[in-house]
């Protein structure tokens, strides 16, 4: 199927923006600019953009420790994301969160998370809230392959099924949890089959094909809005860098990485498709790359120049104080 030209360009640009963000932030992390480090999602752009492009901006997501790509795809300006990585006052969490705790609850981003699997439950809960209020929205929970072995994930999945919640679970399955290959720790080695066992439509899809991701998400969203309950999508993808910035493990071969990069890169694949379909010219593509680079440069500049949070605020916002006397 040919891709809509305008849509395709937007999708491609989003993926490029994420890729540039990640590669830039990685270097900045190595230079000590990102307190606590970060988890680079390069290679996984199609999952984030494919999902988010099928959602309404008001839909809710909750995600993981590796969430820059989801956050940017969800629409958070890259300068705000970068500022948060720098733990600056202008970051989305005022510098309290850094890389793992990006959020914008008001706009449906219910947060990255330091705890594997926790975002699944939060998104399921948001879906319960959506249903309680009778709204026409969905909530999407992202989780890694590693999070498939965490009990809380399956409790949340089950609850979504029995209450028919407008919930979509996306496994951003990059095949490794830190240095642990998914097949070594995943009984049965068929993640979608686990989902099926809990009674929801479950698919394993090509997470490097942004249109496939988009399509499955869109269908899941339609089922959810029609009151048919949750869906489970296991998107196969790959991360090009180490688990965290600076990690150089021996747990996978350089050939494996090179193979994914050169044959299945989601940006290369999609740009090639757009170009071959005449939806994009080489010149336009180069312009796009340049414009993305400029946007990221500006973001870095913004982050650099932003003020640090005021340390006198460390007790602010722990609670509302409305419950009673606070001393």
């Amino acid at each position, binding site marked *: 199927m040919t891709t809509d030209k305008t849509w395709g360009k937007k999708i491609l640009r989003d993926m490029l923006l994420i890729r540039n963000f990640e590669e830039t932030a990685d270097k900045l992390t190595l230079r000590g600019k990102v307190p606590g480090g970060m988890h680079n999602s390069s290679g996984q752009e199609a999952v984030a953009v494919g999902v988010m492009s099928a959602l309404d901006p008001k839909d809710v997501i909750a995600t993981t420790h590796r969430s820059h790509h989801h956050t940017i795809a969800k629409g958070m300006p890259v300068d705000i994301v970068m500022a948060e990585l720098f733990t600056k006052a202008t970051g989305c*969490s005022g510098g309290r969160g850094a890389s793992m705790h990006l*959020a914008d609850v*008001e706009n449906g981003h219910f947060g990255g998370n330091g*705890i594997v699997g926790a975002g699944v439950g939060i998104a*399921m809960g948001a879906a*319960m809230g959506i249903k309680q209020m009778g709204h026409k929205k969905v909530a999407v929970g992202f989780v890694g392959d590693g999070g498939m072995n965490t009990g809380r994930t399956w409790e949340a999945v089950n609850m979504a099924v029995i209450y028919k919640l407008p919930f979509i679970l996306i496994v951003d399955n990059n095949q490794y949890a830190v240095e642990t290959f998914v097949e070594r720790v995943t009984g049965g080695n068929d993640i979608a089959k686990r989902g099926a066992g809990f009674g929801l439509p479950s698919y394993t899809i090509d997470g490097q094909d942004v249109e496939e991701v988009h399509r499955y998400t869109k269908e899941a969203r339609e089922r959810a809005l029609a009151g048919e309950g949750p869906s489970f999508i296991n998107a196969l993808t790959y991360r090009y860098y180490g688990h965290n910035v600076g990690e150089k493990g021996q747990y996978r071969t350089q050939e494996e990485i090179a193979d994914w990069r050169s044959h299945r890169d989601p940006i290369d694949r999609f740009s090639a498709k757009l170009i071959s379909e005449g939806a994009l010219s080489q010149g336009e593509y180069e312009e796009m790359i340049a414009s993305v680079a400029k946007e990221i440069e500006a973001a870095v500049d913004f982050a650099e120049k932003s003020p640090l949070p005021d340390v006198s605020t460390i007790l602010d916002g722990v*609670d509302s104080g*409305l*419950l009673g006397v606070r001393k």
Partner: protein
Amino acid sequence: MSTTTPTAQQNPTYSEAFQSGVREEMKRNEHIFILGTDLVERGGHFAQVKGIAQEFGQDRVKDSPISEAAMVAAGLGSAMYGCHPIIDLNFIDFSLGAMDEIVNQAAKIRFMFNRPVPIVIRATSGVALGGAHHCNSLESLFAHTAGLSVAVPSRAYDVKGLIKTALRTPDPVVFLMHKKLSGVRGEIGDENTLIPFGSANVVKAGKDAAIITYGYTTVTAQKAAQTLAEQGIDVEIIDLRTLYPLDTDTINETVQRFGRVVVADEAPMFGSITAEIAATASEANFKYLKGPIVRIGGARAPLSANPQMSEAAIPSVAGIVDAVKKVMSY
């Protein structure tokens, strides 16, 4: 501190007082719902929500699978979305399966993301029958966690007044109801009686010494006060009602007034909330102390199913009497 006498209204049980408060608030706020096991037909293990599903429908009272982590997560996510869920964990012991959701998530989200998390986590607590897995006193753990408030009512009036406050406040509250008090009747306030957190109740005024306590130990302390009265000692009893926020004004004022203070509860004493109270009150009011603040609490041991052993592991009337005599000896 408050010394309001409950205004007569009816004479419901401690559990029914919870129902009453929840009902009123559910009428006021359509976004309140309740999630827990066996709530719809059974009304919960302690009848705490009996009849509410029938009145408000199963959209507002939901029977849950046995998935404590998901229950709290459901509450958390829906609270972030704008609901005000009551997550009924039945026994607080089961919260151990949802600790990440409570401590890492619900408690921290306002601080991290500037988003209110109006969620009530209700459970029975305290030492009663049932043994090691049904008698944990986890209140000090929750009180230690920044972002959580902890209610520990000891009578019907406080149950109702505190749950109403909890349900009008955009913060996570751990609401602990003592199993042994479930059936105890007492007066309750009306629709507008809200008890602020952090306001202790003077259960009994006295002039010689004070016992600061909460939950079921309030009852034991009252019995001890009778014995002490027979021996000519007039003891004041402060029921904290909430452990966070603590009513430090009342605590300080009490320590300053008497200089002879016992702090009592039934949690294993090593590291219990009584340590926080004694340490902070000693530090703030040292010069008023006639002698050290004396603590009395539970044994450092799991609870046994055998009732005599279980009884022996928590403060007795005699134990409290002795503690008060000790502070009287200064």
